[in-house]
């Protein structure tokens, strides 16, 4: 066990030097590291949100709302298909609980034809390289003289999946507007999105911006309806709908919302927008949002405004009227502006919202963890202080317990810590406050490997072995114990990794890396030191 082949020696020394080089950037402030030439290792360990401050927001996509929307669409498609193919029907209905749309066919002889036509509405889903074709998103069947369309599990999963993907893109565009460094937006499970934004201070604004669905619609105001009256009686004329808008910002507190009676038909939606920017009204100097439609949107908007000059139309965001200006002249260029007594920031946020597009369904925050920058900085300070003190205590104690061999163990311990930081930096892992505690715990574990070895050496010396033989046997015997005891620790830690998120996962990562690193340093690095020390000094007695 004490003889090292040259290549092994080179390998171990190489790893140690690399570890120190890659760990070193963490000692310097970030600003210093930016001046280091790029060919040198310059990656630092990422700090978790609990250490640098920031927001952790877990969003849940509203599955029910999405299913309802889909059933609505299916119902529309069924109606359209049956009309096109001239099949008479009654009782077109949808049921959210069973995820079905059903329709009765008037003539029993038409049922089969209706079935054939409606079956075309089902689209194949799934189909990746591994599972191949997995079925249709709709299951179409006949029951007596009715046709029933059921949303399949595969279809719903597929739709959730694409909705989550779309949400992630949308959220990313919105978060990017804050200009923070390295926000992370990722999918969690079936219907969730985890948003982590380090270093953000105005979390409420972030939440508002992400939380809005961002569905923009233009509708005409019904000029014949008296909005106040209808708002009180709640009797809305057919083809119209009642929506509300905020009172002007100058109005006294407690002013009720303003009702608007609008034509049901949507003129243009936010999907036709190609750009939206905050700017100022040229006449009043008030903050506004200017927007530009794509070709189709511009044509449609131009036509509508041409036909309705002098009448008001409403700009609606997420079923809330932002403003209802009067069309003074046809808007043919496809550009326009939204004014709604905004502040500069509100105009800015609205522009971001419109540019980023709408979310496929409403997102609800189900978990939020926000750490302010000041607490993060305090945590780094206290974590650092506690860890350094712990390290010092351990090193003093090892020196007292094992003398020279304690010194060997201490050198190995420092290399071990360098190794942990090197691996964490290279992995791009995140260091959290519990993670710092994990490193400290690793110190205990790393020391344990050396303690096991040193105790064995003591026993072998007591049994009368020569220094060489005692050290050799000490390492061999202790090895199996070290492996057994570390594997059991790893089992518990791996479970922790699987369980945890954020800080807890950071703890599991550092502990895993630490345990593996400690096995390496204990069985190779200290062995190397001890072997060369024995060879050079040829001691008669082992000072242990």
């Amino acid at each position: 066990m004490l003889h090292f082949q040259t290549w092994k020696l080179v390998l171990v020394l190489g790893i140690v030097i690399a570890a120190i080089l890659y760990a070193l950037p963490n000692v310097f402030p970030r600003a210093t590291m930016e001046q280091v030439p790029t060919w040198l290792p310059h990656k630092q360990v990422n700090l978790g949100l609990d250490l640098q401050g920031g927001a952790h927001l877990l969003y849940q996509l509203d599955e029910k709302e999405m299913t309802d929307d889909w059933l609505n669409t299916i119902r529309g498609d069924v109606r359209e298909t049956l009309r096109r193919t001239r099949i008479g029907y009654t009782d077109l209905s949808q049921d959210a609980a069973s995820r079905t749309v059903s329709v009765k066919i008037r003539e029993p002889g038409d049922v089969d034809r209706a079935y054939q036509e409606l079956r075309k509405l089902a689209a194949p889903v799934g189909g990746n390289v591994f599972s191949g074709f997995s079925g249709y998103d709709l299951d179409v069947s006949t029951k007596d003289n009715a046709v029933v369309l059921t949303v399949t599990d595969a279809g719903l999963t597929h739709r959730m999946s694409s909705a989550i993907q779309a949400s992630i893109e949308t959220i990313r565009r919105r978060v990017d507007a804050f200009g923070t460094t390295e926000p992370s937006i990722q999918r969690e499970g079936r219907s969730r999105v985890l948003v982590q934004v380090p270093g953000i201070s105005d979390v409420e604004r972030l939440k508002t911006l992400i939380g809005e669905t961002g569905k923009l619609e233009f509708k005409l105001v019904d000029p014949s309806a008296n909005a106040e009256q209808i708002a009180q009686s709640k009797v809305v004329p057919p083809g119209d709908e009642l929506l509300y808008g905020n009172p002007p910002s100058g109005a006294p507190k407690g002013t009720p919302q303003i009702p608007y009676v609008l034509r049901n038909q949507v003129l243009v939606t936010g999907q036709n927008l190609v750009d939206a920017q905050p700017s100022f009204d040229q006449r009043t100097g008030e903050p506004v949002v200017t927007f530009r439609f794509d070709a189709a949107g511009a044509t449609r908007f131009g036509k509508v405004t041409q036909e309705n000059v002098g009448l008001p139309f409403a700009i609606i965001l997420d079923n809330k009227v932002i403003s209802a200006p009067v069309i003074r002249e046809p808007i043919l260029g496809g550009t326009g502006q939204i004014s709604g007594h905004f502040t500069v920031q509100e105009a800015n946020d609205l522009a971001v919202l419109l540019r980023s597009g709408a979310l496929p369904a409403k997102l609800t925050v189900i978990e939020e963890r926000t750490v302010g920058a000041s607490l993060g900085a305090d945590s780094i300070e206290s974590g650092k202080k506690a860890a350094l003190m712990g390290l010092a205590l351990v090193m003093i104690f090892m020196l007292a317990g094992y003398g020279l061999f304690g010194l060997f163990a201490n050198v190995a311990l420092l290399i071990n810590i360098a190794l942990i930081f090197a691996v964490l930096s290279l992995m791009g892992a995140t260091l959290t406050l519990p993670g710092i505690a994990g490193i400290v715990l690793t110190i205990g574990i790393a020391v344990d490997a050396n303690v096991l070895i040193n105790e064995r050496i003591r026993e072998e010396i007591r049994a009368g072995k020569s220094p060489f033989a005692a050290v050799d046997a000490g390492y061999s015997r202790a090895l199996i114990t070290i492996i057994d005891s570390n594997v059991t620790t790893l089992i518990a830690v791996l479970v922790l990794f699987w369980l945890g998120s954020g800080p807890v996962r950071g703890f599991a990562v550092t502990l895993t890396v630490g345990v593996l690193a400690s096995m390496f340093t204990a069985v190779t690095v200290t062995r190397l030191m001890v072997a060369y020390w024995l060879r050079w000094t040829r001691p008669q007695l082992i000072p242990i």
Partner: protein
Amino acid sequence: MFRGFHFIPPDTNIDFVGMRTITWIISALLTVVPLILIETMGLNMGIDFQGGTLIEIQTKESPASLSDIRSKVSGLGLGEVQIQEFGAPNSVLIRIASQPTEQEQQASIGKVKQALGDTVDYRRVEIVGPTISSELIASGTIAVVVAMLGILIYVWFRFEWQFAVAAIASLIHDVTGTIGLYSLFQLEFNVSSIAALLTIIGYSLNDKVVIFDRVRENLRKYKRMPLVRLLDVSINETLSRAVLTHVTTFLAMLPFLFFGGETIFGFAFAMCWGIVIGAYSSIFVASPLQLILGVRREAWSASPAPAKGRGAAAARI
């Protein structure tokens, strides 16, 4: 040359397993008393498992006026509100009970911020909705159980079933003992407490495996030694290691108790206790249990390794 201080003299020979009548009583107390504590005093469940809102603020003036904050927050109609000083005189922790829906939960934080104004520094805000809290309870429980099962299988595979059962029983002892500590001091029980429990499980087992390894080795070495004696010899032989390792780990963790900051205090406290109770259970729970369960010697003598004295272990490597 300095040879290091022997904290445990080499010829130490304590009759640990012989004390088992007394230590059984202590172990039983260490298991039952926590259960009574949990039943009577309950656990101070954090928002991770209960849902709710937690806000840590720092006020400009020091000390913060708790009564002023209390009156402002409790007037909001958010149900049960707890307000306490947290670490420093101008640091205050506000805990608000779970709201009926995720939306109301979200709205609650806005209301609090409005009531307290911009003059305070919001150091930390945590909101856990009802969906997540029930999931966290489930995954926390599963984690502890899965870890135990994984360990059971590994120890069974590497040793014998008696070792595995003894290990698991001692781990249950450690876990209940630690949860009892949370109850006794009303420390907040949250996700990092589960992390602490799993770490204690890992650490405590690490310790047991070291003794098991020695027992296995000694079973090969001393074929005629009575099991009681053999267990004692094994514990005594590894005692010096145990003391050194536990003291170093404890020393490493100790500064976190005093300087690690308020957020990690509970974790550090549980870890320090876990080191102590884990060390105790290795000697006084796992070993006497092996005696009761009766370790089969044939299993080791029949192994192909030459079972001659100390050569046995070396030959296996």
